[in-house]
């Protein structure tokens, strides 16, 4: 009997040694397999700098947490909202996604995203969370005292000037950067070169090709003129006196100063900033411009560095507001509880290294107010102060439940005004009526 005990004890010891040996020989992942595997879907929009960085941060997280796998998908910028809506409708929406700021009202109205557990994100209270970001960034994400979105990038558009062309016509790119809309028109006029009925160079260009850009470009002019998209009762107010003033300003570059060719934009490169990059126009308002894009499109401009971002003009000199928008990390309300928790950790990790975001995705600034802007890597980026200033003094896009209809109506109105020389008040009246109809239809549904 004692032999049997000895044998079984020996066997137990051997088994113990064997088990330890096996455990030691397993890669470190083996231990983590004790946690239940979690599979997530995550969708975002495509951008050559921002998307790869996001993908990298998520990959780093899944390497540290091997039980988590993320199916990372991305879509064209203008399609993301549509794809997510259809995804919700068909039950194929991802557990986590990047929400463009202007879609927040839609998700919130239909209860499609969850309020965030701020504690898990490292904040002690809503106030602490709000302090970390400027109000423009968080106001769209906060409802009834709860935060529904974790702001990712928020940036303002700048008026990018081609300094070489400025100097060519005897203007100083620093001093003569337009401060008011009238100055913009006059400066653009000086920079324009025409050959008969063709423009070989446009002084300034507005993008005419997409409804999203129409709203982005018109927004700061409208707000600057004292107008609003909707009044307090929810009725569309773009056809107010201020709205007409704003639209007249918008149209003046082409119609009054003859410094722009609206028909040229639609059929050329869909991204009109390519016209600016190819030096077919001298000024263009665009998101922060990554140097690598300039190098790719116009190596001479990159090498000579003859461009700079300037602040938006306003109706009063020095009081321009830029157009800003941003993106929030949000969580699908239909995701399982454990996945929601994992997403919180994932998001916290993604945004835990803001300087790294700058390294990969400069010059797109994060919405985070502080804690990274003093880093030398950030400070030495050319014109970073202008970019951050544009972010901070910008006006956010209107947040409407019928954003797509609103954008399409404004887009048609701008086309009528600029391409068919239609009456501005009449066009805006039509647009406002369309938007009101859409809002009423949404409310009824």
């Amino acid at each position, binding site marked *: 009997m004692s032999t049997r005990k000895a044998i079984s004890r020996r066997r137990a010891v051997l088994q113990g040694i064997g088990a330890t040996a096996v455990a030691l020989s397993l890669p470190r992942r083996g231990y983590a397999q004790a946690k239940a595997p979690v599979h997530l879907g995550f969708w975002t929009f495509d951008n050559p700098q921002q998307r790869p960085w996001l993908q990298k941060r998520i990959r780093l997280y899944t390497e540290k947490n091997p039980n988590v796998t993320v199916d990372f998908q991305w879509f*064209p910028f*203008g399609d993301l909202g549509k794809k997510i809506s259809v995804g919700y409708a068909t039950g*194929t929406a991802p557990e986590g996604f990047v929400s463009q700021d202007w879609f927040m009202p839609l998700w919130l109205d239909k209860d499609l995203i969850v309020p965030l557990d701020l504690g898990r994100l490292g904040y002690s209270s809503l106030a602490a969370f709000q302090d970390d970001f400027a109000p423009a960034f968080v106001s769209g994400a906060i409802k009834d005292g709860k935060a529904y979105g974790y702001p990712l990038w928020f940036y303002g558009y700048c008026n990018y000037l081609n300094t070489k062309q400025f100097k060519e016509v005897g203007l100083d790119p620093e001093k003569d950067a337009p401060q008011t809309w009238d100055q913009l028109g006059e400066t653009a006029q000086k920079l324009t070169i025409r050959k008969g009925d063709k423009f070989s160079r446009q002084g300034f260009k507005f993008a005419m090709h997409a409804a999203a850009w129409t709203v982005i470009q018109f927004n700061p002019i409208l707000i600057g003129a004292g107008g609003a998209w909707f009044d307090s009762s929810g009725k569309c107010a773009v056809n107010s006196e201020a709205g007409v003033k704003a639209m007249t300003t918008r149209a003046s570059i082409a119609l009054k100063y003859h410094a722009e060719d609206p028909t040229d934009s639609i059929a*050329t490169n869909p*991204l009109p900033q390519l016209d600016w990059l190819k030096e*077919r126009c001298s000024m263009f308002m665009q998101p922060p411009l990554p140097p690598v894009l300039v190098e790719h499109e116009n190596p001479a401009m990159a090498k000579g560095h003859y461009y700079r971002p300037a602040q938006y003009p306003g109706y009063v000199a020095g009081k321009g507001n830029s157009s800003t928008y941003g993106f929030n990390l949000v969580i699908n309300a239909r995701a399982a509880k454990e996945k929601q928790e994992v997403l919180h950790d994932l998001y916290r990790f993604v945004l835990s290294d803001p300087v790294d975001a700058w390294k990969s995705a400069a010059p797109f600034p994060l919405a985070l107010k502080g804690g990274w802007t003093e880093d030398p890597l950030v400070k030495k980026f050319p014109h970073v102060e202008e970019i951050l200033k544009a972010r901070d003094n910008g006006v956010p896009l209107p947040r409407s439940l019928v954003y797509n209809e609103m954008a399409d109506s404004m887009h048609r109105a701008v086309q009528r005004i600029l391409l068919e020389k239609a009456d501005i008040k009449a066009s805006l009246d039509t647009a406002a009526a369309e938007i009101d109809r859409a809002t009423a239809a949404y409310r009824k549904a």
Partner: protein
Amino acid sequence: MSRRPALALLRGCLELAPLAALTFLFILPILWMTTTSFQAGDKMFQLDTEWIPSVWHPENYSNALAAAPFARYFLNSTIVSAAIMAGNLVFGTLAGYGLAKFRFPGDRIVLLVILATLMLPLEVTLVPTFLVVHQLGWLNTYQGLAGPLVIDAFGIFLMRQSMLAVPSDYIEAARIDGAGELRILWKIMLPQCRPALAILAVFAFRDSWDQYLWPLTVVSVDRLRTYPLGLVQFGQDYGNPPTEQMAVAVMATIPVFLLFAVLQRAIRRGFGLSGLK
């Protein structure tokens, strides 16, 4: 006497000249697409654009292929188009044979019902077809891409017309000899309907190769995109010059032209144009 052939040739050229000029003008856009695909991106939309490139840039093709996963997109399109072409050939033949050579109660109504579906294209039934495909679990799958297009009334009608012209004697004789219907179809009908099959193959492939709205609706992942989705996306993304878009367009045009070239003679017979000089 030796001048006559030369004179005849000259006269032929002169007679052909107006038609040739018209043809050239007509296909000018195709030629423009091809020359532009070799043009430098910067040369587009200068005030006096040069239409024949002074410097040829074949790297537009490799750049375009590298910038987006077009190889994958073209593969997807090929799979889906081949499936739809095959489906149309098979089911068009089956239904065409049934309608051409058989009498059964309601056969006139069946013909009308099938032809009436020409008024129900995907553009009209988009939303519910999307919902049906979603119910079947076919979103983001090849089945979903090809499914709703795999049989088309045009193909059935074409095969029916072609089979009507085949004399029934042979079929009767074969039946009496004890041949099964599928054997008759395969051995007697199809060989005589080759021209119609050729036409159907080319048009079914082309229609599927062209599809944009349906893939746009049913696909939301990159790995299943067909090339039209990829090409439109490519044109909207950062920094892809129109010249590279034209390069992809040329690459997309080649398969359809090739298929047509291969089946050309049969197609001409199918249209009844063998008598044309």
